[in-house]
């Protein structure tokens, strides 16, 4: 892990229209190059909003974001070239084949021809999908869709990869393949920002985590350090429940 932050977030605030409560409330955070950073929190905590702002999907109401030294206000197009995103929803076209989906998203990143074909073939093979590449996505299982969803964010070899709940609702095998692959690309220098509800998964995967609730960061640090700071709890999930409460969230 580098000591230079690759993402600097300062006083980031987001109010949605017709809402008095901020979805994200003046959060400040540094994420370092080559980290696997976990953004954890209950439903509606502000995780997806934070990631959406970092990806340039919509602007913050207040605050500043710098990614790889580029200010998001002025250099959004440059930022989009170096980041990859794996959304929470299966962001694919169901009536296109896996290969067609990947080719289209690759094109949007400026990849064409043999370079793109090579990358698609590589990733399809890596994730065990080469046999199904020419089937329409609507015929894929949940796990297969998740894997293609992940590949679509990796095709252009992003420097930073954002993953919003990448392992929701899939079989154990697909989850293991995805998590192993994330570790592998992280070891090659890709910074990963990851949101999840699975505390155990985050505890094993992340180098650092931040627990966010009601738009505020309520804890952050290395999972081990967090556990040492709260010796009364056995695991990250217990700390999470202690900090965020047991009330059901919408």
């Amino acid at each position, binding site marked *: 892990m580098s000591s230079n932050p690759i993402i600097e977030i300062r006083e980031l605030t987001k109010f*949605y229209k017709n809402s008095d409560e901020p979805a994200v409330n003046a959060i400040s955070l540094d994420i370092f190059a080559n980290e696997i950073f976990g953004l954890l929190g209950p439903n509606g905590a502000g995780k997806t909003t934070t990631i959406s702002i970092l*990806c*340039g*999907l*919509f602007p913050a109401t207040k605050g500043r974001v710098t990614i790889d030294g580029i200010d998001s206000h002025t250099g959004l*197009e440059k930022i*989009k*070239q170096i*980041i990859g*995103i794996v*959304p*929470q*929803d*299966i*962001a*694919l*076209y*169901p*009536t*296109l084949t896996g290969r*067609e989906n990947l080719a*289209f*998203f690759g*094109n*949007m*990143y*400026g990849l*064409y021809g043999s370079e793109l074909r090579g990358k698609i073939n590589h990733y399809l093979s890596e994730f065990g999908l080469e046999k199904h590449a020419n089937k*329409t996505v609507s015929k894929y299982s949940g796990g297969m869709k998740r894997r293609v969803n992940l590949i*679509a*964010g990796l095709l252009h070899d992003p420097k930073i990869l954002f993953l919003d709940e990448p392992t929701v609702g899939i079989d154990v095998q697909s989850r293991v393949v995805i998590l192993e692959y994330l570790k592998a690309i992280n070891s090659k220098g890709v910074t990963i920002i990851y949101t999840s509800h699975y505390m155990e998964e985050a505890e094993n995967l992340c180098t650092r985590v931040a627990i966010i609730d009601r738009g505020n960061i309520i804890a952050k640090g290395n999972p081990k350090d967090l556990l040492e700071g709260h010796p009364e709890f056995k695991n990250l999930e217990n700390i999470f429940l202690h900090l965020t409460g047991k009330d059901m969230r919408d």
Partner: protein
Amino acid sequence: MKKYLSVCRKEMLLLLRDKAGLSMLFIMPVALIVISSLMQEFGWNSLSKDPSVQVLFVDNDRDSLGIKIKNGFIGSGSFKVIDSLANSPLTAITAREAVKKGDYLIAIVVPEAATRTMRSNVRLSVAKTLAGFGIGDPVLLNGIVFRDSVNVTIYFDPTVKTAFKNALISSVRENYYKIQTDWVFKTFNEEITLQMPMYKPPREAFNEVLRFSEEFPTYREVELIPNTTQHNVPAWTIFAMFFIVIPLTQSLIQEREGGSLFRLLTMPVSYMTLLMGKVGVYLVVCVVQTAAMLLAGVVLLPLFGLPMLVLGNDLPALLLMTLVVAMAAVGYGLMIGTIAKTHQQAAAFGSISVIILAAMGGLWVPIYLMPPFMKTFSLISPLNWAITGYYSIFVRGGSLWQIAPQALKLFLFFISTVLVTGIFHKYKHPLNI
């Protein structure tokens, strides 16, 4: 440009795999053209070719008036006259019952002594006129009154359309006036001959003095008689083109709701490129759709015995018109798909608004038949501009110059829809956040 072409390719693939959408875009409109043209051509228009409408005829007169009215119906070739049911001669009561049950659409009852009454009235009328010339006794004639007019009763099934009913009544009236005029003329001759033996009546029968000839002035050298094909093909083509609003809005909303747009907006591609990719593909679809519909008019309709579509003299005018109508239709779909929040909203508003605009625009009912306030509304329907432009080409033989006003209006409509879409996105996020 490569990204734009890639968006177009993706849109084309999505469209080609949507079988229901494709059938809505191509098969259904062609079916509509064929069915509506067949209904019109072999409906009211075909009465003269095939007397398929049966008329119950009750002749209580049993004299020349009854016979002449009956022969008038038979001679028109438009009706099949029936005067008995189940081997029993029809009466006013049985004819009325048959219409009431819905077995027959029309029954005509000529009353008893109709000929006698009419002859008597005609003779009296002639005598009174001649008395004015000193022929006959005016004092005696003034004391004689006319008998009540002959009342021919026509029973109509309640489902009979007003236009059909009016056409039939006009036909009966026309027939009746011919008979009356003929009798008046003959009676005059008979009376004058009786009173003035030296008078020699003309040998010729009474001749029609007023005739009507139909002409359709157009820009083309050879006159083109308008027919159902020339009217229907452009009307349904425009309707189908505007129905592109459904697959286009679905494509926009599906991309938004499915999450693909979320991903795309984080990629180095502009939202305008994504939108214009859709516009490009759907424009091509609209043009291909028009070509298919026109081809159906030229090739398919004649196979059903319908007149062949005659394309105008001016291919550039036809191409320009098709392009601007396609632009207007796609622009409208883009605007609705952007503003609508859900599939249901877009589908309901899109389809109903197109039907309203089509009705307002005179696609189904000609504008000249509309009430004044509707005529004003029709002028703001882009479908009206489209049909006016196409009629200029198809039935008036117009060229580029004649369609220019409509083409300009449709182009400006397209620009307005794109502007509304742009302005909407300035204030509302593409993901409706």
